């Protein structure tokens, strides 16, 4: 329980197989509460796979085998039957904005409604708060009832974040949330992440070294399914321990 005070998520001895192909190899990692943790590494190294184990999105894929354990607040998430509760607690924002073909309002209200909030006033409040939280309220407040698919990529991605926030999760997982965005939108989302970390534990996958350096407190470097190095971002980027980390962050491969 001692670790639990600092660590929100504890991953120990995690192995993951797609069929016979091992995509994650003995990962051990404690992710700190109210910090932003960045996952970096070359394409195919297992970043997305790892992220998706944290809210059991890999359950959707056939033929996945998982060993080891992951605890959220000290509770093993692969022991509970209640995936819904886990996913309510651990929200996710995907690489490509994936809003539903509904209005902006309905998108953000989707989660709360699913969990039984029916009251119009309460929903209004949640939607407004979440959109404000995602720094997109001003831009969309006059067209909440229009389709969410009419927005720009950057706006859509922030609505996705609002949608995740509306669930009042404790952890937010983000899989390359800005890779589909233009530089200005990216900046906005990065600022947002900085603000959100006071209230949430954030884990973010990124391909962009500069982004990792800018937004994260801790960084984990993955390579071929292994966790090569994991430490404070400042230290990692100035003084990497492992030769492979150094090569990667200085752009020598990948």
């Amino acid at each position: 329980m001692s670790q639990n005070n600092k660590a929100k998520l504890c991953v120990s001895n995690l192995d993951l197989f797609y069929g016979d192909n091992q995509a994650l190899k003995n990962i051990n990692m404690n992710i700190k509460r109210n910090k932003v943790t960045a996952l970096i590494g070359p394409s195919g190294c297992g970043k997305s796979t790892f992220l998706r184990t944290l809210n059991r999105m890999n359950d959707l894929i056939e033929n996945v085998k998982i060993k080891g354990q992951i605890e959220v607040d000290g509770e093993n998430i692969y022991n509970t039957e209640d995936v819904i509760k886990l996913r309510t607690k651990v929200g996710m924002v995907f690489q490509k904005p994936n809003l539903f073909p509904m209005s902006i309002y309905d998108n953000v209200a989707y989660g709360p409604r699913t969990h039984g909030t029916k009251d119009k006033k309460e929903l209004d409040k949640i939607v407004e708060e979440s959109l404000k939280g995602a720094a997109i309220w001003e831009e969309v407040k006059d067209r909440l009832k229009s389709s969410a698919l009419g927005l720009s990529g950057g706006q859509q991605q922030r609505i996705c974040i609002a949608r995740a926030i509306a669930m009042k999760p404790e952890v937010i997982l983000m899989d390359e949330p800005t890779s589909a965005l233009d530089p200005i939108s990216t900046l906005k989302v990065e600022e947002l992440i900085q603000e959100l970390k006071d209230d949430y534990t954030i884990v973010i996958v990124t391909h962009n070294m500069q982004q990792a350096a800018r937004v994260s407190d801790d960084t984990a470097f993955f390579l071929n399914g292994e966790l090569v190095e994991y430490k404070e971002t400042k230290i990692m980027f100035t003084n990497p321990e492992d030769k492979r980390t150094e090569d990667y962050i200085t752009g020598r491969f990948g």
Partner: protein
Amino acid sequence: MRKLKENILKLLVYLSVLFTISTLVLIVGYIFIKGIKGINLSFLFSDYSASGDGGILPMIITTLYTVALSILIATPIGVLSAIYLQEYAKKGKIVTCIRFATESLAGIPSIIYGLFGGIFFVVTLGMKYSILSGSLTVAIIILPVIIRTTEEALKTVPQAYREASLALGSTKFQTLYKVTLPSAIPGILSGIILSVGRVIGESAAILLTAGTVAQMPGGIFDSARTLTVHAYLLTKENGDIQGAASIGIVLIVIVLLLNTMARLVAKKLNKANC
């Protein structure tokens, strides 16, 4: 030499196209020329009379009954089956088995459905010759069509929608009725429209299960005649080619309308997915 070969091949292609088009024009044209004289309001909307001079209203009503009932039976079963296959089932023996069954059902000739319905629904289940027996039989016939098109429609719903919904803590079922199904509805609709066409065109299977009673059905437990069966019986029993052609016009117009509807719906589907 090369040019000659090329021209021969071209000629073959154009001859084929000509054959296809001209058969269509010939058949539709023939039916229209033969049958148009018989088309008038009293033919379409007055009651049938065995002593002649009657209209085809009872057959139209029977056709409507049969379409409504069989669609009502087959749609929920078909859509739910497709959902199971597409959203729930894991690859394996069970799915293979179900797939094989639906594919086989799709290939069975309707006369065999007629044989089956004629002893199973009519005799064994005691439903007698009735619109109900007929509709149940055609419901099995159209089941694979609805399953197939619904599956295709579900496939076109982006996986991202499902993931987004699940990641928000929804159950699979919530995801299904809030996100996946609404996106798939145009596809399902076009499957239903296709099936309506199939039901309307069906003859052998309905003849052997719904019977041939030429009068206004009082309900689904009555035996009655659909338009297509009526066209067949007019030909066979009365040698009334002109009457059959008149009904043919009605049927062709219905088919045209249904096809156009299906097209519009499909267009909508494409738009929705963009």
